[in-house]
């Protein structure tokens, strides 16, 4: 405990330096804007800002990008509550009761509860991150190639199980992502694979053009030409204060959403999206009056908003402790750290304490900044939504091209982004989840290396994966997930995802 507090003090000595404070603030503002704009989720926002972080020191870079990430989580709630437009996917559930509250003239309290819930969840989960990440990192020092193989396979299966819709379709996407990750030079043999003479492909396909294409561009292709959004309500500051009853009813959902969101955030997948769906389902189930849900229940705002913010923080645990991204957002952030020559993994916390603890402390600071930003300045931010979408989306397109090109000054990356945008557009029409593609792309080199090293260690025997306790445990978990997924097929029962409404997102 004393060690943690000492380290946290070190973190605050880093996070409270004026330059880091300024970048945390800038990150939160950009994130809030990005979260509010339809077509620009946290991933596209972080990807676009990535090139601008190359010239910064690594602590500032990660603080800035993390600010964008949880700023977007906060920002997404504003458009959901006031306009029924989810700025990013995790806010879909907030739309239901948040907008119903706005229609009943309670939009202000809904915004306040969303901000308070996000703040509480963000703070609680940073505390959990602070204790869990170093423990997990020291445990991960026992991992060899077979354990990493098991961890990555389990991660992909958890992602497939947790995501909405068909598990097989999600696995198909994950394998497609892994195949994209095979393009480029094979690290073990030096062979250049599937590059067809394009020199830029020798280094493989980068996560940024794929992420911006799949998530940013495909969204624009789907929504371009939509009618201008309806007029925006701007609640005054005094209208934001929730009633005593609303506060009382929100406490439970906020605590439950925080715990649930953090736990879901640790496991791979689009955790912040899934957590808000699951939280909404649980709150509806636990409510004595489930019929209020859909008609402006404050619990339907408090739970999902807390859960998606807690999940955003939880996702940093495996990223910082194991060097393994749980989703596309953390994958891009890992890329931002690696650009500076820092190798993420179990040794990061020991070798770069300023980076880790400065980052943790900056998250406390970021949560306070966002609370200050989101409540009094909500009227200022919603002005952005008055810009007609027909002006916004061409500008977003230009930002996509700018951001992708500037990562490596490569036009090929722009082509990849356009290809991925088209692919994402078609796949979404066919009901496929896109996050596994991005995650598969990032995990592919790690998975290939660990599989081949494991086989080399065992002289070609797959038995090595079933001889080591940690690896066996992970494979058992993976096997159980497959059995759970098969259960509704065999017994014709309802899947848990359908019960919590998760299948509605697909």
């Amino acid at each position, binding site marked *: 405990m004393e060690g943690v507090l000492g380290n946290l003090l070190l973190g605050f000595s880093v996070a409270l330096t004026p330059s880091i404070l300024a970048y945390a603030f800038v990150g939160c503002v950009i994130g809030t804007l990005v979260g509010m704009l339809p077509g620009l989720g946290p991933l596209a926002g972080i990807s676009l800002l990535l090139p601008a972080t190359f010239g910064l020191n690594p602590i500032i870079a990660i603080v800035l990008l993390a600010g964008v990430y949880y700023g977007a989580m906060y920002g997404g709630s504003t458009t959901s509550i006031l306009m029924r437009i989810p700025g990013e996917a995790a806010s879909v559930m907030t739309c239901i009761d948040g907008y119903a509250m706005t229609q009943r003239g309670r939009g202000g309290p809904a915004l306040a509860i969303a901000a308070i819930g996000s703040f509480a969840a963000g703070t609680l989960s940073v505390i959990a991150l602070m204790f869990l990440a170093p423990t997990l990192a020291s445990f991960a020092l026992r991992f060899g190639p077979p354990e990493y193989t098991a961890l990555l396979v389990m991660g992909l299966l958890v992602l497939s199980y947790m995501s909405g819709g068909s598990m097989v379709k999600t696995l198909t996407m994950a394998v497609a992502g892994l195949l994209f990750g095979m393009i480029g030079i094979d690290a073990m043999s030096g062979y250049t694979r599937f590059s067809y003479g394009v020199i830029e492909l020798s280094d493989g396909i980068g996560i940024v053009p794929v992420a911006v294409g799949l998530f940013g561009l495909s969204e624009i292709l789907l*929504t371009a030409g939509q009618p201008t959004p309806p007029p925006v309500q701007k609640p005054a500051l005094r209208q934001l204060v929730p009633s005593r009853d609303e506060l009382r009813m929100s406490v439970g959902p906020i605590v439950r959403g925080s715990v649930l969101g953090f736990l879901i955030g640790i496991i791979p997948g689009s955790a912040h999206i899934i957590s808000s769906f699951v939280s909404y389902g649980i709150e509806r189930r636990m409510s004595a009056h489930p019929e209020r849900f859909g008609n402006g229940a404050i619990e339907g705002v408090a739970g999902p908003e807390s859960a998606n913010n807690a999940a955003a923080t939880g996702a940093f645990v495996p990223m910082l402790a194991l060097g393994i991204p749980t989703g596309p957002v953390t994958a891009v952030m890992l890329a931002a750290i690696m650009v500076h020559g820092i190798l993420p993994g179990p040794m990061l916390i020991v070798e770069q304490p300023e980076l880790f603890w400065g980052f943790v402390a900056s998250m406390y600071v970021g949560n306070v900044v966002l609370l200050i930003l989101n409540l009094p300045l909500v009227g200022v931010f919603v002005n952005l939504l008055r810009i007609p979408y027909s002006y916004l989306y061409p500008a977003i397109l230009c930002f996509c091209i700018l951001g992708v090109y500037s990562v490596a000054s490569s036009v090929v990356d722009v082509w990849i982004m356009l290809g991925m945008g088209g692919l994402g557009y078609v796949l979404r029409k066919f009901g496929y989840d896109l996050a596994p593609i991005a995650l598969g792309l990032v995990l592919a080199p790690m998975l290939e290396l660990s599989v081949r090293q494991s086989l080399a260690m065992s002289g070609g025997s797959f038995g090595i994966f079933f001889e080591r306790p940690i690896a066996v445990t992970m494979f058992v978990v993976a096997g159980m997930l497959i059995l759970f997924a098969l259960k509704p097929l065999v017994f014709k029962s309802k899947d848990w995802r359908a019960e919590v409404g998760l299948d509605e997102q697909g």
Partner: protein
Amino acid sequence: MSESSAAGAPRSLRIDRISGAVFVAIALLVAWENRAYPLGTLSEPGPGYMPLGLAVALGVFGLIVALRGNASPLFDTISWTESRRAVVVLIGCGVAAFALEPAGYRLTMIALLVFMLGVVERKRPLVTLLVAFGFAFISYFVFATLLNVQLPRGPWGL
């Protein structure tokens, strides 16, 4: 009633059957292309080992998606109302990608925005030009000048 829709796709086709079949075809293509890389042995897997394994997995999953596809929606039920605009947007961006290095960032963005706002969205010419020039020069100043991001310059240093 005809078995084919106006677009030529049979009406009984379901989206999972189509997408599953496409993934099987892609898996076969990858496996075919993978012949160029040595598979190695189990104790020393080569560069072709993992791609082949993944191609097999993609083929198997694609087959399962296709076989379980009877409950999926019919292909005809997918709405493609925005597809025309989506294609135009993609073509516009493609041309911009071609022009980016020879013409420079600012000229390319001006041209792209004039096309998107003036031609696709039919905004008034003056507003279109103001937005296009404003966006191109302000974004260049913020990213290239303030944040030191490398952006291409075209003729006359633009």
